[in-house]
């Protein structure tokens, strides 16, 4: 079975042709074009959606050519229906609806977050992992079987991706700032860390980052170097995440941990996670860097699951939903998932 997956949740317009036969999942192509915000500012939804409109046809054709296929070979089209930025989601949905109507293909709206999870599970061969999903849009610890996700902990304010991004913008970097913050943190160069000045806010299994961001900005304004602030923020932010994750592992008795989403590409976080998982004898799976960010392959991966569950929408019912938590995905309510 062959799926064309279309992603347009935020800054990325992506398309992928992927194949699922018996149990084997293969990404035939994965193409994307990413909207770049000017340095010091974040994603402007209207500008990002304009970017998607301009690049969508090239990205989709590249995905088909890259897979050496024509649209006729595709069995169904999956698109990211949410959660995400409305104007951006709409572009992906329009592309998917148009292709589905014109070429008479089944249309499957999927949840973006489940896309991250399904792709990770398939690429890393994990069966029943606890999931740490960390990106610009998500910071959530979840577990469940494919049909029923439960949230064990999450951020009460900023996501870890936003924390790093907003700190980076304060430094005058361009988004996504995560990799730049990571590089700064690695070059501590004898600067003193400011860890003791930062709040460590964990409430049960939930974390809070807004106070951390304010304190980090204050410390930078008061003269601390970008290196020392970046290092300290990473140490505190990741320690919070791992503490909450470890608690969720203890609570659920899961033996596998899947880490996915854009921030999963951070090397320091991986080191820390490996340390924690080794001490508990838990198998750690970190999504390969290439697929950690938003991409069409994740939507195709989720597409197979949603398709199998019969979540096929007619064109007039093909919705987008800006707010769509993974614990609200309900496979018992066909097509009217909104």
């Amino acid at each position, binding site marked *: 079975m062959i799926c064309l997956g279309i992603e347009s949740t935020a800054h990325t317009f992506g398309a992928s042709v992927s194949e699922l036969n018996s149990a084997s999942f293969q990404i035939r192509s994965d193409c994307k074009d990413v909207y770049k915000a000017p340095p010091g500012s974040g994603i402007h939804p209207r500008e990002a959606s304009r970017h998607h409109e301009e690049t969508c046809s090239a990205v989709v054709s590249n995905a088909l050519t890259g897979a050496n296929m024509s649209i006729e070979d595709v069995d169904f089209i999956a698109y990211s229906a949410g959660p995400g930025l409305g104007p951006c989601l709409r572009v992906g949905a329009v592309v998917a609806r148009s292709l589905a109507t014109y070429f008479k293909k089944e249309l499957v709206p999927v949840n973006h977050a489940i896309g991250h999870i399904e792709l990770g599970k398939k690429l890393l061969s994990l069966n029943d992992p606890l999931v740490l999903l960390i990106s610009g849009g998500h910071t959530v610890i979840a577990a469940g079987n494919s049909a029923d996700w439960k949230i064990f902990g999450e951020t009460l304010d900023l996501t870890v991706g936003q924390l790093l991004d907003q700190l980076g913008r304060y430094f005058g970097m361009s988004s996504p700032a995560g990799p730049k913050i990571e590089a700064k943190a690695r070059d501590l160069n004898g600067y003193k*860390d400011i860890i*003791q000045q930062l709040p460590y806010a964990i409430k*049960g299994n*939930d974390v809070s980052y807004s106070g951390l961001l304010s304190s980090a900005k204050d410390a930078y304004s008061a003269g601390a170097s970008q290196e020392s602030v970046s290092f300290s923020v990473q140490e505190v932010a990741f320690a919070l995440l*791992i503490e909450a994750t470890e608690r969720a592992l*203890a609570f659920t008795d899961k033996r596998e941990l899947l880490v996915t989403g854009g921030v999963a590409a951070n090397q320091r976080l991986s*080191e820390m996670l490996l340390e924690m998982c080794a001490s508990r004898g838990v198998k750690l799976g970190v999504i390969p860097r290439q697929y950690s960010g938003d991409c069409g392959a994740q939507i195709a991966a989720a597409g197979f699951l949603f398709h199998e569950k019969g979540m096929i929408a007619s064109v007039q019912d093909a919705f987008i939903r800006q*707010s769509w*938590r993974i614990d609200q995905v309900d496979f018992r309510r066909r097509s009217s998932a909104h």
Partner: protein
Amino acid sequence: MVEANEIFTSVEGSEARVELCEWYGKPAIRKIRTRKKYRNEVLDRSLRARRTKEEAEILHLSKLAGINSPEIYFADPGSFEIIMEFVQGTLLKDLQKTNKGSQNAFELAGKYAARLHKKGIIHGDLTTKNMLWSTMGMIFLDFGLSFISDRLEDKAEDLHLLKQALKSTLDPPMAQKCFEAVLAGYRAEMGDSITKSVRKQITKIELRGRYATVD
């Protein structure tokens, strides 16, 4: 009566190692906050020392608030350890699996939470694995994340966590029923008006979750 050492000798929790030991002839629990290698060492030491000290203090205060919790025999923030009474029973997390009619236990959990809150104690990790149902009745465990606060937000956060724990282990109608029992117990102890405010605040907290919708 089961001998203590038939049950376990040592458990690696998420935050501390819990071992069975003896304290002047009585079976006791030694809780040692172990080094988290993933965590920056300075941060790690200060967190472990602070939490050990606060846990011992709040364990003591919790009894004054009128709930059952383990007796403390010894506490030392320098070595990050607390030695406390060994209590036995069934965790509420396991009780809810076998006996779905454990409404009394949930009501009592709510009552205990209210007694703590009345004295300004926030448990901080109020889940069904930190509640033990024993022959003595309900016993609250693990005050490792507890703190003192009179803020409505913190009270609500405490109960919100319990609600999350129920929702993550039970099917939705059952979780709802159990949480209603918790709230009934809470109301009985705390009174209508504060319970109402706490409830409202819980809804606010839930809406803070990413992509939450009003329903």
